[in-house]
């Protein structure tokens, strides 16, 4: 009887601990897809997205407010169509805000930064950000630097 009891306790403790660990892993170690209050998608065209990836953060004033949902090549405009998924609790962003692709740190990953505009209308599902600034490509920057350095002689 004592034997069965310890077996039961051991099995129960093991299974509970296992599911607790699974719960911990699935909820506490990742928050990339957590939009608790829902979300809305806005689009933006960029001439060059640099190293931007799907799931890169979208931030405003340094605070993460969403992430990049998809990146596609626009065959008519020959630029990149980026869909930004923004947390629904940030529903009062002026619709003339501008989006730029920035780099976090020297070697860091790239993200989309939003600068608020002055419009009274707000971004909503399906809005397009008209004002965008491409990623700064290191080669272009060096090229411009070399041209400038040559010109100053």
């Amino acid at each position, binding site marked *: 009887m004592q034997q069965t009891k310890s077996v039961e306790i*051991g*099995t129960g*403790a*093991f299974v509970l601990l296992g599911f607790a*660990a699974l719960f*911990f*892993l*699935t909820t506490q*170690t990742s928050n*990339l897809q957590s939009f608790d209050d829902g979300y809305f998608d806005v689009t933006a065209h960029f001439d060059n997205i640099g190293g931007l990836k799907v799931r890169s953060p979208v931030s405003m004033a340094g605070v993460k407010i969403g992430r990049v949902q998809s990146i596609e090549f626009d065959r008519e405009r020959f630029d990149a169509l980026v869909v930004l998924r923004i947390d629904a609790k940030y529903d009062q962003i002026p619709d003339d805000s501008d989006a730029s692709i920035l780099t976090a740190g020297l070697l860091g990953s790239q993200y989309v930064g939003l600068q608020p505009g002055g419009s009274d209308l707000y971004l909503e599902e399906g809005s397009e950000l008209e004002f965008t600034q491409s990623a700064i490509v290191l080669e272009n920057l060096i090229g411009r630097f070399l041209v400038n350095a040559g010109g100053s002689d």
Partner: protein
Amino acid sequence: MIRDLAETFGGFVRTFGASQLFFARLLAESPRVLLRPSLVSKQVYNAGALSLVLIMVCGFFVGAVIGLQSYSNLARFGAEDQVGPFSALALMKELGPVITALLFAGRAGTALASEIGLMRVTDQLSAMEMMAIDPVVRVAVPRFLGGAFSLPLLVAIFTSIGILGAYVVGVPLMGLDSGAFWSEMKQGVAQADIWEGIIKSIVFGIAASLIAVWEGYNCQPTAEGVGRATTRTVVISAVVVLIFDFMITAIAIT
């Protein structure tokens, strides 16, 4: 010479085919066994609960060493903040499933194989058949199900404790910021990474349990045969787990 090779290869294919038929049989009998959960829960205790201390100790130290190694190397690039996501991803996607499966093969797989093998040696399996009890249903299936159910839970425990180990090394010992450790981890880990680890652990659990039960059930009925069955359980499990690990990773990445 060539004939020998052909015979060896033929024997391999035959054993492989037989083991797959055995697997199909196990799956076919599983629903019947699940109607008597006490048979399976006993095996969950043997395969899972008895491996718990080993898994927790190993998980903690594997996580701690990953924290230490990643810290010392990432610090050279000024990227110490990435210790959290680095350790979590390494543990979730590779080390957790693989090391747990190898430990499981050594701890629970050998126990299963030698137990069933000894039943074979002492004619207990034949005795069951005499009493019109199917030894596959009574002996093999509950052990297979218990093992296959236990391993994913063990992997989750190993990974969680490992992340704790990395935290202990990174935050109090190396002086990383606790908030940065967790928030960078949450930024860097996607649901898909977690699912990759869970899928691996399910596949490894089925593979390691099947191999252990198969080797035990089909061992030579001698003392030497039982010993050989236990050895083969560990060796074959290790090879199969590592091959599956590569294949699942390749599918997940492409």
